């Protein structure tokens, strides 16, 4: 069924073609295929999964979001690209960007089936202000947000944290991704440098290591429950 790959909007200049009757496949065939556009087998969820939850993994460029998601995810991380909206262009200074080009933002994500009924999705996005319109919607209904930080480049995380504190109602925790030459800071010094409230959890993390990545996610869920418990319980 060649038509399936015939016009990819992300392609350079796909050849125009006219829909024709030949393109209409038999109904049965529409249900049998299970390969993605690149021909790989699609890792479907178990049929028993009926509910989902999500955690956002945000951070500066190059901080290890995709690595982290790859370590924790049960599927090879997937990527989707979203054109930036006019709204997001409006609130940001896109200095130096050619206004004629369409800017797209990549989102990498992964999945963990937590029990037969529940799947957790991990969505990784850049946290800078100009992407805010993208991930503000993503954060809605999220269990929480994990902010990945590179302690060699703390300044890169300031803007991300500002955005989250200002705009995102979901609870967040900070994970310091350790690179081989990462200096060891104490949690207190990091908290001070990042100007974080005492209640915001800070964990060390090795984004390459599954156990370590999962542990950071546990911190987010744990923190979400603690916050809810603290504010919750009506008298």
């Amino acid at each position, binding site marked *: 069924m060649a038509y399936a790959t015939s016009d990819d909007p992300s392609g350079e200049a796909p050849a125009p073609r006219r829909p024709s009757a030949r393109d209409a496949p038999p109904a049965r065939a529409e249900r049998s295929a299970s390969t993605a556009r690149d021909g790989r087998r699609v890792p479907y969820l178990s049929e028993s999964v009926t509910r989902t939850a999500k955690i956002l993994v945000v951070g500066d460029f190059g901080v290890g979001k995709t690595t982290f998601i790859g370590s924790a995810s049960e599927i090879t991380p997937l990527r989707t690209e979203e054109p930036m909206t006019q709204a997001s262009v409006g609130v940001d200074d896109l200095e130096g960007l050619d206004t004629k080009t369409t800017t797209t933002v990549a989102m990498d994500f992964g999945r963990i089936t937590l029990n037969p009924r529940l799947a957790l*999705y991990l*969505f990784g996005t850049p946290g800078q202000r100009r992407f805010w319109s993208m991930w503000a919607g993503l954060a809605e209904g*999220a*269990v929480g947000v994990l902010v990945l930080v590179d302690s060699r480049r703390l300044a890169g995380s300031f803007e991300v944290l500002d955005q989250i504190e200002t705009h995102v109602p979901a609870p967040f925790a900070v994970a310091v991704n350790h690179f081989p030459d990462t200096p060891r800071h104490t949690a207190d010094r990091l908290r001070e440098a990042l100007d974080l409230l005492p209640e915001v959890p800070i964990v060390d993390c090795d984004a390459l290591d599954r156990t370590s990545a999962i542990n950071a996610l546990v911190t987010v869920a744990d923190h979400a429950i603690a916050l809810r418990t603290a504010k919750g319980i009506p008298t």
Partner: protein
Amino acid sequence: MTDGTAGEYRDTPLRPYVLTGGRAGPADTALGVDTLLKAMPHATPLPLSATPQSRALLRLCGGGVLSVAEAAAHLVLPVSVVRILVGDLVATGHLQAHAGSFSEPSMELLKEVLDGLRDL
């Protein structure tokens, strides 16, 4: 517009919002990135005028359960476009959409996530 006599505009591939008939948001169905999709069995075949993207989406979902984000990634389409295509296919009874996080998760769900992560 009947199939086989499609006008020139229809043929032109295709900025994202052309695929969606110019719409920027889905009609009714609540569709999050983590909303789960499943093809309805025994649905009528898609009309001949259906776009290749809608067909590919329906075919993909015919193989099993996937989220909106996964469908977008596998089809190499923006999530915003897939949400609109899904909305249409749900409206015509070809796709079923359920779950998805929209409002603050319940305490029960938070605990289930925590327990699930700890048990990994």
